[in-house]
């Protein structure tokens, strides 16, 4: 009579296979099952690759946030990620987290960790987060602080990671690999393993809100990514399947939404153009408007420049990033092409038995 499906999950992972029926249902019915919420653009660090460059916003009040949480819960949102800026620059953050927990959200927190004290860590442990993700760019203070533009930030982040792990809070160390820290990959991975944290990394940098492109100065070249993958991705020796031509290009705007500090609603964190503001209309009304129709209807077969690309199986493309980088969410864009081509070359070389990077 009662069937169960159970799965270990990292929260919002695209490898959420046992939940495919639920995810498909939320996609089909346009239920915003997961939401990213940028609570503030204020930040106490000055990371060189940051995209959130528009710091001055009329931020939502605690009461507006609580009202919105109620609306999101009614719409079927379950997974909620709070991010910034730096979320702890809001002095009501813990109250917001407690409200969200009370309303049955599974909460994930993105932070640099530098403002987390023993007392805050105690409260986070009490709340019971799905995970806390902290950006750590290196095990070397010099490299980390150079990237954050803030002397002493490494020590504070390391301390926060320690405080969280000491309380068994699910902790993920995340790190974009840049020109300056690519050699730190092994150290970071080993450090994470030693303290019982997860470790994730990424090659992709996204355009900043002011239109600048940090990837030009700070990102890795195709050759650097290729050599990195040859050295570090030995387990990924299978060629991934090409995406189904009729598959949606992503869940943004279908079962994923994003809220900015001042209440703008967008399809996801990567889509920086708002479709409405929750101070002017209920979220449900904004969500049901026609603004997202073209995104919701987009399929892989619509990717005219990409659908015949022989690296599409390896492509990390993101419609929002494409829009930001080249002005069209369906076109190819350099950051994704760089990673796709490097990954294709590396996997083919690994499969053919060669490991010498050339």
């Amino acid at each position, binding site marked *: *009579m*009662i*069937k*169960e*499906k*159970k*799965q*270990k*999950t*990292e*929260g919002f992972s695209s490898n959420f296979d*046992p*939940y495919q*029926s*639920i995810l498909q*249902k*939320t996609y089909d*019915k346009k*239920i915003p*099952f997961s939401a990213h919420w940028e609570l503030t653009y204020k930040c106490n660090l000055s990371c060189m690759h940051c995209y959130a460059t528009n710091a001055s916003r009329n931020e939502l009040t605690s009461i507006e946030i609580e009202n919105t949480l109620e609306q999101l*819960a009614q719409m*079927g*949102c*379950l*997974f909620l990620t709070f991010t910034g800026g730096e979320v702890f620059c809001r002095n009501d953050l813990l109250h917001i987290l407690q409200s969200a*927990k009370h309303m*049955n*959200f*599974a*909460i994930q927190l993105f932070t640099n960790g530098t403002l987390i004290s023993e007392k805050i860590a105690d409260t986070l442990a009490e709340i*019971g*987060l*799905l*995970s806390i993700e902290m950006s750590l760019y290196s095990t070397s203070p010099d490299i980390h602080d150079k990237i954050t533009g803030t002397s002493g930030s490494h020590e504070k982040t390391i301390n926060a990671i320690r405080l969280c792990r000491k309380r*068994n809070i*699910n902790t993920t160390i995340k790190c974009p690999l840049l020109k300056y820290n690519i050699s730190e990959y092994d150290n970071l991975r080993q450090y994470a393993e030693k303290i019982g944290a997860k470790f994730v990394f990424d090659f992709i940098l996204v355009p900043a809100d002011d239109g600048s492109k940090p990837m030009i100065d700070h990102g890795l070249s195709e050759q650097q990514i290729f050599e990195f993958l040859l050295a570090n991705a030995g387990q990924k020796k299978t060629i991934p399947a090409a995406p189904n031509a009729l598959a949606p290009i992503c869940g943004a705007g279908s079962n994923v939404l994003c809220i900015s500090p001042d209440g703008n609603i967008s399809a996801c964190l990567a889509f920086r153009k708002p479709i409405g503001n929750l101070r002017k209309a209920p979220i449900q009304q904004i969500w049901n408007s026609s603004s997202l129709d073209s995104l919701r209807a987009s399929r892989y077969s619509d990717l005219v420049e990409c659908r015949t690309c022989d690296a599409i199986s390896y492509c990390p493309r993101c419609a929002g990033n494409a829009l930001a980088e080249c002005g069209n969410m369906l076109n190819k864009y350099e950051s994704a092409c760089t990673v796709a081509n490097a990954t294709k070359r590396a996997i083919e070389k690994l499969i053919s038995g060669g490991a010498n990077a050339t």
Partner: protein
Amino acid sequence: MNLTLNSVPQKTPDTVFRIIDEETVIVEPRKGMVTVINAVGSRIWELIDEKRTINNIVDIISTEYDIQPEEAKKDTLSFLRDLSEKDMISLS
């Protein structure tokens, strides 16, 4: 505590959940676990309110789904035992 018809189940405070079109997605954040239960399980989950006994829940399920009380009892007990073993509910 043993699970009996007079037990009063309550959801573990650590669980969070959402009903999606009659199915319920239950997340245990600390464990990083997600469980999806079907419509009948969702109704039982909904009836767990720290007041109803398992017997009360069995009666409601038997009536609402038009099934024999013995079958409702067997399935409800089995389901709740499973939730209890996974620490998703506690009993008083």
